[in-house]
């Protein structure tokens, strides 16, 4: 079955081919008419989007198109920017996360984030992974140790670091540091993981390790990844959203976007004609 939905108000957004999505599963993330301003500058312009659970969604688009800003809306990381103003609704598992009563700390336990540059704390490898548990007030040593081991295994780092858990995380290589940051996020057991260009600072081998990891993690988590790398988006994602100057130009199955995009602009971007 192939459904093509046209946005009725304006023709900007074309959501195509939502085939093979199990519609009985509740949508993990629903975005309704979201606008973001930095002072007078509008960074996000009226975006609607739905993201299904256990999928990898790639956000692509030229620098400054708003994809990172958009990603950071999901765990309210933009809250710290003074001039930032947001309108619209973002529902995660049915709850609007921008309601006044929302506990932002609780929200972020549910929605982990991996950043562009590996940013381990200047602490030991173990302490890095245990951090999220310790700030929740968990004291049970055995429980923490088990979680740390599990998270490091999930992040495919355990074999490399199991004998030096007490060593500083800063002594690891860049790729290992980034996998450590992923393990740190996983230890809290979120359900959604946001990744902001997680491999842009890494070499090709580390990158492919992280890509394999994302593929594995998809089984248990919903992943949204911002990337500048077209091949990466096409390799790892199920859905791709193309942003341009704050607008969502096209959003749909990755295969479709990369082989037969609806919009000329999307085609120009992914074929490298601009960007």
């Amino acid at each position: 079955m192939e459904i093509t939905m046209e946005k009725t108000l304006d023709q900007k957004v074309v959501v195509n081919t939502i085939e093979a999505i199990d519609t009985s599963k509740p949508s993990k993330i629903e975005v309704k008419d979201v606008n973001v301003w930095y002072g007078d500058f509008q960074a996000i312009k009226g975006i609607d989007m739905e993201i299904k659970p256990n999928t990898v969604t790639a956000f692509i688009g030229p620098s400054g198109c708003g994809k990172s800003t958009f990603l950071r809306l999901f765990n309210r990381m933009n809250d710290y920017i003074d001039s930032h103003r947001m309108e619209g609704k973002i529902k995660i598992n049915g709850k609007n996360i921008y309601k006044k009563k929302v506990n932002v700390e609780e929200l972020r336990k549910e929605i982990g984030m991996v950043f562009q540059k590996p940013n381990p704390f200047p602490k030991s490898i173990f302490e890095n992974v245990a951090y999220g548990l310790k700030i929740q007030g968990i004291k049970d040593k055995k429980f923490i140790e088990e979680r740390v081991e599990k998270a490091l295994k999930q992040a495919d780092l355990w074999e490399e670091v199991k004998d030096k858990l007490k060593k500083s995380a800063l002594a690891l290589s860049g790729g290992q540091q980034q996998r450590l940051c992923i393990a740190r996020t996983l230890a809290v057991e979120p359900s959604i993981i946001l990744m902001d260009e997680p491999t842009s600072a890494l070499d090709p081998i580390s990158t492919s390790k992280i890509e394999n990891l994302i593929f594995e993690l998809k089984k248990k988590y919903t992943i949204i990844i911002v990337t500048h790398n077209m091949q990466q988006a096409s390799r790892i994602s199920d859905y791709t959203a193309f942003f341009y100057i704050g607008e969502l130009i096209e959003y749909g199955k990755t295969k479709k976007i990369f082989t037969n995009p609806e919009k000329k602009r999307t085609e120009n971007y992914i074929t490298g004609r601009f960007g």
Partner: protein
Amino acid sequence: MRKIKEYLIEKLLFSSALITIAVTFGIIGVLGFEAIIFFSEVSILEFFTDTQWTPLFADKHFGILPLLTGTLLTSFIAISVALPIGLSIGIYLSEYAPKSFRKTVKPLLELLAAVPTVVYGFFALIVVTPFLQGFIPNLSGFNSLSAGIVMGIMIIPFISSLSEDALHAVPDALREASFGMGATKLQTAFKVVVPAASSGIIVSIILAISRAIGETMIVAIAAGQQPRFTLDPTVPVETITAYIVQVSLGDVQHGSIEYRTIFAAGITLFVVTFLLNTISYRIRKKYQQRYE
């Protein structure tokens, strides 16, 4: 013509640097020279073990310990005051305060270090001591407690300003990582930012201690001039610096053993502050590149 000008300017700059270094070495030289003569008459063992310092009395004792404990006691009180206050200010300014507030308050705090120390000394003597006597009736008019407290206020900006610089230099990526895992501002400040800035904070504390140890006016005015081997903060003591002032102002005969005591005391002070500065320099160098 232009070349000559460049040449002259270069030489001028070079000689200014040279003069500064020469003066420093000159001072160290004089200190060392006079101290060597002093130690030819008084054994180093006596100097460091005798618990009495009475070079101006008939029964002469040359034990530096009373002066050293006086110095360390006042400095310890000062740092006990300055460390919690200074560090709290630093954390507040770096992690909580709005940018505009930080920009106004930081220079204002640094004014504390610009107040002439003689003013602090009188403040300790005629305000703080009488005030404290309300709580501690047997507090003497000269004591290390009020001198130490006021000295602590004076060195607050050393700690607040330098530790704020260190906290501010911690990359935002670390704060974001912590917030991203559901940490509160307080948790992020104390579990991530302060540990990451610890080397800078330690340097600020060492420099503040070094400043307190070398401070003269406040202790000379408010702490008294009785070299006493004690850790009791309520009685008069004398610090190394206060002793040097006392002897320099008095009519001690030039070239006598009494006169040379100030060089022996001076070089002791110099060694202590030199060690502290070296340690802080080492720490700074060791951790400087961490985030670059």
